[in-house]
């Protein structure tokens, strides 16, 4: 068998390929992006695609599943929020071909707007969730997820974190299983969720979760490693690796299936160790569960809820050990090195003008979010993909015309397509008069230059229809539409002033190719 060093994300792509996956759809988001990029590069017998957003991506994958194909959908943690609507009901319909969703959490918020712990979503949506602790497991768990999905008629979520997705390790390579398309049988009681069908399906979902609870104790995904029984530690994901490193002699209950949790194994483990600990990143998800089973356990009283864990944090919490410091404190001030807009970035021209005009800027998600930092310091709200335009309208509703005349929304091309279109429709529909700047750099830049519906290319490299953003904006009902090269700074300033002053909705499209794009 061949062993190869792989990034966790590459290992997941490999796992999907080996499992006979046929369709994969996602939206770029750190730390999940490389999965589909790897598939498009190395495993071209899978039809892979970037969808406009995560909701659509999951729907495409679910459609492929119902039609009989093993399928995959990939996204970052906040992307699963966008896809939560289909997720919760596809839990009821279940699958035909195996359906696996890769969810990449980001403890430490290395490239994210929050540190949400999506283990809660698996519980809320009543879906099994696997939680690998290294790239080798990332591949194996992804493969296994397809089997679990078909056997238990559940979409299965595989959860990674930054230190799994963007960590490399040896992975055993296997061959691709040729899994034929399953028959598509018309079965509205399973696939059409009118209330009369949903109610019995809910009963079915609850039954499956009970079966999976048994599987969780028996499958080997969760397993007890008996060593010294003085201290027993329950741990999952990369935290398990930290525990093994700093507590090599302690017994460990390794959690590889984080929902449903293995009641029987937990009871067996907890009742045989003198002291019980849970070491997990982010929320006390396992800890609360163990407590509800009636066991006394130490967890978040010594392990932080915020930020990602490190070996030394675990060492300090469990062994009281401080890392040895061999150098003294440096007395001077060390300047930080925050990321910034590149030299010559087209967004920079826009932010220089916005700064000069000193207007309120409702921002969005992308490279241009860096406009919040010096030297621009020109962003005053931002929350999630597509929020800029809706919030911009909210500002106007709250503070009236005066606000609308001295503020703009800024949003990138890919983010506008992801979830800005409906808010622009809302602005026109509900008689807003604000100005939206679509910063069109012809690519999804922040995540590393992915194609999107406005680039004219697909993930697989095929030519396709290039979405006409002007036509789109006009179809939303915006009559004032200006397209401008932001490098013409004087003209840009004039246009922004004019459009802000106009008491009707307007869109300025600042169009210039990303400086890094060839």
């Amino acid at each position, binding site marked *: 068998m061949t062993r190869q060093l792989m990034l966790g994300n590459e290992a997941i792509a490999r796992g999907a390929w080996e499992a006979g996956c046929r369709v994969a759809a996602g939206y770029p988001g750190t730390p999940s992006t490389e999965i589909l990029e790897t598939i498009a590069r190395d495993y071209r017998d899978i039809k892979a695609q970037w969808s406009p957003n995560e909701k659509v991506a999951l729907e495409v994958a679910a459609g492929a599943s119902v039609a009989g194909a093993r399928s995959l959908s990939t996204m970052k943690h906040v992307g699963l929020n966008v896809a939560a609507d289909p997720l919760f009901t596809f839990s009821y319909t279940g699958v035909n071909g195996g359906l696996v969703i890769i969810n990449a959490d980001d403890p430490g918020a290395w490239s994210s707007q929050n540190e949400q712990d999506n283990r809660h979503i698996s519980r809320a949506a009543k879906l099994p969730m696997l939680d690998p602790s290294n790239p080798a497991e990332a591949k194996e768990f992804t493969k296994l997820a397809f089997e679990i999905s078909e056997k238990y008629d559940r979409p299965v979520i595989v959860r990674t974190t930054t*230190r799994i997705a963007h960590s490399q390790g040896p992975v055993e390579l296997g061959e691709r299983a040729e899994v034929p398309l399953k028959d598509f049988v018309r079965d509205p009681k399973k696939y059409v969720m009118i209330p009369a069908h949903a109610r019995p399906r809910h009963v079915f979902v609850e039954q499956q979760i009970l079966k999976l609870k048994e599987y969780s104790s028996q499958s080997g995904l969760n397993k007890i490693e008996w060593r010294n029984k003085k201290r027993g530690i329950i741990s999952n994901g990369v935290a398990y690796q930290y525990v093994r490193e700093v507590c090599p002699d302690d017994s460990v209950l390794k959690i590889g299936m984080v929902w449903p949790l293995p009641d029987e194994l937990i009871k067996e483990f907890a009742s045989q160790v003198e002291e019980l600990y849970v070491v997990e990143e982010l929320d006390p998800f396992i800890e609360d569960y163990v407590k509800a089973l009636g066991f006394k356990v130490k967890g978040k009283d010594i392990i932080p809820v915020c930020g990602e864990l490190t070996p030394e944090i675990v060492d300090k919490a469990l062994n009281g050990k401080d890392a040895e410091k061999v150098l003294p404190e440096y007395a001077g001030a060390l300047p930080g090195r925050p990321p910034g807009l590149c030299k010559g970035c087209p967004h920079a021209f826009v932010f220089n003008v916005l700064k000069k005009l000193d207007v309120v800027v409702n921002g969005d998600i992308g490279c241009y979010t860096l406009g919040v930092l010096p030297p621009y310091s020109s962003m005053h709200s931002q929350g999630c993909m597509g929020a800029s335009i809706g919030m911009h309208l909210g500002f106007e509703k709250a503070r009236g015309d005066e606000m609308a005349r001295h503020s703009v929304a800024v949003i990138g091309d890919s983010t506008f397509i992801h979830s800005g279109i409906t808010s622009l429709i809302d602005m026109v529909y509900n008689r807003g008069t604000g100005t939206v700047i679509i910063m069109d750099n012809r690519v999804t830049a922040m995540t590393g230059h992915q194609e999107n519906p406005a680039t004219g290319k697909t993930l697989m490299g095929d030519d396709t229809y290039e979405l006409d953003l002007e036509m789109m904006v006009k179809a939303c009902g915006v009559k004032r539409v200006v397209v401008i090269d932001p490098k013409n700074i004087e003209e840009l300033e004039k246009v922004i002033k004019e459009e802000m002053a106009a008491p009707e909705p307007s869109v300025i499209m600042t169009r210039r190719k990303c400086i890094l794009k060839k």
Partner: protein
Amino acid sequence: MKNVIFAGVGGQGVILASKVLMEVAQKRGFDVKESEVHGMAQRGGSVDCNVRYGTEVFSPLIPKGGADYVVSLEMLESMRKIDYLKKDAVLIVNREQINPAPVEIGAMKYPEDIEQWLKKNFANTVVVDTTEALKEAGTKKALNIVMLGCLSKYLDFEMKDWEDAIKTLVKEQFIEQNLKAFTLGRDLIKL
């Protein structure tokens, strides 16, 4: 187990340097783990890579006080890693200063005493001047491989292991240039 941290600024090629080391270690039969950061850090921010190899490696992250080698491609970035040094570690620093944003906009000063301070407080500090080597290599982009060449002088791998790994990981048209850069880096370290 050996623990190596590569530090630098987004765009300096820290990830490729760590990949070459991993490839060498893996070929020699070691268990290898690595951790890197993508995304926001790519836009000119601080970047680092942790590489660990040995009989069995658990954590992909090197704990504070756990690094055997810290290789910094930029002066200031080395200072962010000093808490990771073991007592007998080696700190290899490229004597190049790249101004971070707060310095560029005049809000802060680039600390000028880093080299002096490091040498005073940590005996195993090796500051290298890569200017000539990069001139000879013909491209500034080879800095990552020059620094890897420096590191290689301290590690027990054969020259052929390194060459094979570079040939595996570098694009065909850049192989010669990188092999040269590697040797130039090795020559910067006198042991």
